[in-house]
C-alpha cells in the first residue's frame, strides 16, 4: 500500500506546520478594545460619552489637586499663593489635621495615647479578622484591648480597667464552675460574681484615685475622627451580643419574650437614628434616677448600640431562618438542651451566613456616627462645620475639608467591605 502511495504522491509532510499568529484584529489589546469598548454602534457611543464625562471630571479635579497649596496660615494667604490657578487650599488640612483627627479639646501633648490605642486596635482585631494566620493565643490581646484602649484614651487610674477585667474573670470562673449544673445557674452566677467584684473594686478605686494614673481626659474633650472610630467600634462590638440575644428572642416560642423583642426591634428600626440621638441628648436624662449624670458620649453610645443591635438582630434572624430545619432537629435529637444546641450547632452556622449582613450594618453604623454632629458633638463632620469653618482663618474652605472627611470614611468603609467579601469567599464551604 505504502509503496504505491510513495510513487503516486509527490510530497508528504512529515512535520507539523508551526502555528500562525492569530489575525491582528482577533488578539491582544486590539481584540480586547473591540469587544469591550467598541462592539457595536451603541457601545461606541457609550464609550465616547463616558470618556468625555471622565475628561470633564478630570479637567476640574486634576488642576485642583496638582495646583493645591499645602503650606499657608490662612485662606487669604492661600489665595495669594494660588493666584487664581484653581488649586485646592489643602493647607487647611496641614494646619488643622490634629483637630480633624483628635478634636479641638484633647490635650495635644497626649495625642500619643489615642495613637497607640489606634495602632493596638489593629493588633487586637488581627487575630479575629485573620484567624487562619494568627495563633489563637493572640485572642487574649483582643480580650484585653477594650480595657487598654479605655485606659489610654480616657486616662485615670489603672485600677478601673483592672477591676473591670477582674470582674469579667471572676464571672467567667463562676460560670465555668456552675455550667455543669445548668446554663441558667452558670449565667446568673457569673453575672452576680462579676457585679460583686465590681462593687468591691469600686470601693478600692475610689480610695486610690491616683494609683498609676494617666492624666484623665473628660469624655466631652474627645472629638474628630477619633470620636467616630470610638463610637463605631464600641457600638458595633456591644451591639453584636445584644443583637444575637434579640434575634434568638424573636425566634423564640415564648410569646412574651418574642413580643418584647419584636416590639423593640420594629420600634428602633422604624425611627431615624437622629431621633434616638435627640433622645440621648435631651430626653434620656429624665429617665435616669434623679441626681445621676451620665456623660453625653455614654448616652449616645447606649442609643447607637440599641439602634445597631436591632439591625444586627434582623440580619442574624435571617441567618437563623436560612439554616435547614434538620440542624435544629439534629441538635435536639442529640439530646442537647437549648443553650447547648444554640452554642454548638445553630449559632456558628447562622453567624457565618450573617457575616456579610453584619458587616453591612457595621459599615452603615460607622457612617452614621457622623450624625452625632447634629447634636453638637464635635466628631469629624462636627469639627469641620463648627470650629474650623467658622474660624476666621479658614472660613470658606469647603471642598478640601469635606473631601478629606469623605476620603477618611471611604478608606475605612471600603476596606471593611473588601475584607467582608474576602471572608465570604474564605467561608464558602458549600461545593459549587
Amino acid at each position, binding site marked *: 500500500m505504502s509503496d504505491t502511495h510513495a510513487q503516486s504522491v509527490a510530497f508528504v509532510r512529515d512535520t507539523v506546520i508551526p502555528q500562525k499568529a492569530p489575525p491582528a484584529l482577533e488578539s491582544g489589546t486590539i481584540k480586547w478594545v473591540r469587544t469591550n469598548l467598541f462592539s457595536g454602534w451603541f457601545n461606541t457611543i457609550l464609550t465616547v460619552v463616558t470618556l468625555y464625562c471622565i475628561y470633564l471630571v478630570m479637567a476640574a479635579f486634576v488642576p485642583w489637586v496638582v495646583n493645591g497649596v499645602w503650606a499657608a496660615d490662612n485662606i487669604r494667604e492661600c489665595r495669594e499663593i494660588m493666584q487664581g490657578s484653581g488649586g485646592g487650599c489643602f493647607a487647611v488640612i496641614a494646619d488643622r489635621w490634629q483637630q480633624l483627627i483628635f478634636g479641638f479639646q484633647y490635650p495635644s501633648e497626649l495625642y500619643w495615647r489615642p495613637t497607640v490605642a489606634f495602632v493596638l486596635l489593629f493588633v487586637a482585631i488581627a487575630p479575629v479578622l485573620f484567624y487562619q494566620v494568627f495563633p489563637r493565643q493572640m485572642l487574649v490581646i483582643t480580650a484585653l484591648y477594650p480595657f487598654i484602649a479605655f485606659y489610654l484614651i480616657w486616662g485615670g487610674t489603672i485600677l478601673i480597667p483592672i477591676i473591670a477585667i477582674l470582674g469579667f474573670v471572676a464571672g467567667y470562673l463562676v460560670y465555668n464552675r456552675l455550667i455543669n449544673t445548668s446554663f441558667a445557674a452558670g449565667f446568673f452566677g457569673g453575672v452576680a460574681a462579676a457585679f460583686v467584684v465590681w462593687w468591691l473594686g469600686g470601693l478600692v478605686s475610689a480610695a486610690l484615685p491616683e494609683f498609676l494614673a494617666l492624666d484623665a481626659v473628660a469624655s466631652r474633650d474627645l472629638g474628630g475622627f477619633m470620636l467616630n472610630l470610638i463610637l463605631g467600634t464600641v457600638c458595633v462590638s456591644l451591639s453584636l451580643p445584644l443583637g444575637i440575644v434579640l434575634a434568638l428572642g424573636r425566634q423564640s416560642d415564648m410569646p412574651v419574650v418574642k413580643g418584647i423583642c419584636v416590639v423593640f426591634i420594629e420600634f428602633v428600626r422604624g425611627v431615624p437614628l*437622629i*431621633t434616638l440621638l435627640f433622645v440621648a441628648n*435631651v430626653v434620656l*436624662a429624665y429617665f435616669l434616677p434623679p441626681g445621676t449624670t451620665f456623660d453625653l458620649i455614654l448616652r449616645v453610645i447606649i442609643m447607637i448600640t440599641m439602634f445597631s443591635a436591632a439591625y444586627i438582630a434582623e440580619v442574624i434572624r435571617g441567618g437563623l431562618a436560612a439554616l435547614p430545619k434538620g440542624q435544629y432537629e439534629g441538635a435536639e435529637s442529640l439530646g442537647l438542651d437549648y443553650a447547648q444546641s444554640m452554642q454548638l450547632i445553630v449559632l456558628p452556622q447562622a453567624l457565618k451566613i450573617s457575616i456579610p449582613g453584619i458587616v453591612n450594618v457595621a459599615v452603615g453604623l460607622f457612617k452614621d456616627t457622623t450624625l452625632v454632629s447634629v447634636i453638637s458633638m464635635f466628631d469629624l463632620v462636627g469639627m469641620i462645620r463648627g470650629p474650623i469653618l467658622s474660624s476666621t482663618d479658614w472660613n470658606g474652605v469647603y471642598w478640601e475639608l*469635606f473631601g478629606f472627611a469623605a476620603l477618611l470614611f471611604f478608606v475605612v*468603609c471600603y476596606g471593611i*467591605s473588601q475584607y467582608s467579601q474576602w471572608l465570604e469567599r474564605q467561608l464558602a464551604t458549600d461545593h459549587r
Partner: protein
Amino acid sequence: MSAITDPPQGSFQLSMLLSDTRYRSYTFQFIALACLIAAIAFLAANLAANLSAAGLNISYDFLGSAAGYDINQRPIEYDSQSTHLRAAMVGILNTLIVAFLACVSATVLGVFAGVLRLSNNWLVRKLMAVYVEAFRNVPVLIWILIIFSIMTVSLPSPSAFRGDNATSSMLFDAFAFTNRGVYTPAPVMGPGAWVVVYAFLASLVGIFAFRKYATKKLYDEGRLINTLWPSIALFFVPSLAVFFILGRPITLEYPSLQGFNFQDGIQIRGSLIALWFALAIYTGAFIAENVRAGIQAISKGQTEAAGALGMRPNRIMNLVVLPQALRVIIPPLVSQYLNITKNSSLAIAVGYMDITGTLGGITLNQTGRAIEAILLLMLFYLIISLSISTVMNIYNNSVKLKER
C-alpha cells in the same frame, strides 16, 4: 428494643416550673414580664420624680399655641401666628415632598447604574462600579453638606444677574441658578386650565386601557397590535388639542430679577436640592447594587431559553428577566425607600424645614417640650415605616412563588 414511653402524666407539682420543659417556659416568660414591668416602673418613677423636680408636666397643649416662627418652604397656608400643630403639618408635608422626590430620582438613577454595571462595555462597567463604591462608602451627611456647599457657595448671587455686564445669565431665560436657590417658571392656571389637566389624565387612562385591550387581543386571538405609536399619540394629541382649543389657558410665569432678588416663578431652595440630590445619589448607589443582584439572580438558562425561542434581547429583558428579577429587587428597594424617608431627617443639618426641623427643632427649643415633641416625631416616622412594611408584606405574599 426499647418501648416508647409517654412522658409521665402525674399531677402538677410546683418544682415542675423549673425542671419540666413543658412548664419551664412559663417561668421564663413570667420572669421576663416581671423584669419588663419593673424596668418600665423604674423609668416611669424616675420620669415623674425628674419632672416634678423641674416643675414640668407632660402636656400636649403647646401644639395649640402660636408657633411664632417662620418656615421658608410652605406647601400649605402657614404664617408665624399659626399653631405648632400647623408647623408640624408643614414639616410633615416637607418631609414627604423631599422623600418622594428622592425616591423617584434614586430609583431612576439606581436602575440606570445597576443595568449599566452589567453592561458589556468595560469602561461603563468600571465607571458605574466607581460610582457605587464612592457613594456607598461615604456618609450621606457629608454628601448633603457637599451639595449644600455647592448650592450656597459656588452658585452666583442674584445680583450677579443684574445690569448690562452681568456675570451670570439665566438658562433659556427661564431657569436661574443662584445661591438662594433655583428659580424655575411656574405654571399659571387660567380659566379652563383644569379641563386640560383632566384631558391629560383621561388620556393616561386611555393609554392604560388601550394597552390592556392589546394584551387581551394578543392572548385571545394571537394578534399583535403595535402599542407604541398609538400610546405616544394618545399621550400628546388630546391634551394639546384641548389646550389649543381652549386658547392656551395654562401659561408659564417666568422668574425675573426685581430688586435684589428674583420674583415670580417657583423657588427651589438650596437646602431642598442638597437633601434631594444627596439622598438620591447616595441611595441610588445602593439601589444599583440591589438591581444588579436581582438581575444576576435570574439564572442564565432563562435568558438562553428565551433566546432559543427567538426573542430579541430587549424583549428577553422586558418579558423574561425583569418580571422575575423584580421579585428579588422590590423588597430591598422598598427598604431603601424607607431609608430615604428616615435619612431625610438629616434635613436639620442644612436647615430644610421638615418634621425634624419644625417639631423636633424649633418647636422643641421654643417650648422646651422635649419628651412630647420627640415622642410625636418618633410616632410619625414609626407610622410611615410600619405602614410601608405592611404594604410590603402584602405585596411579598402576592408575588411569592406558589410552590407545592
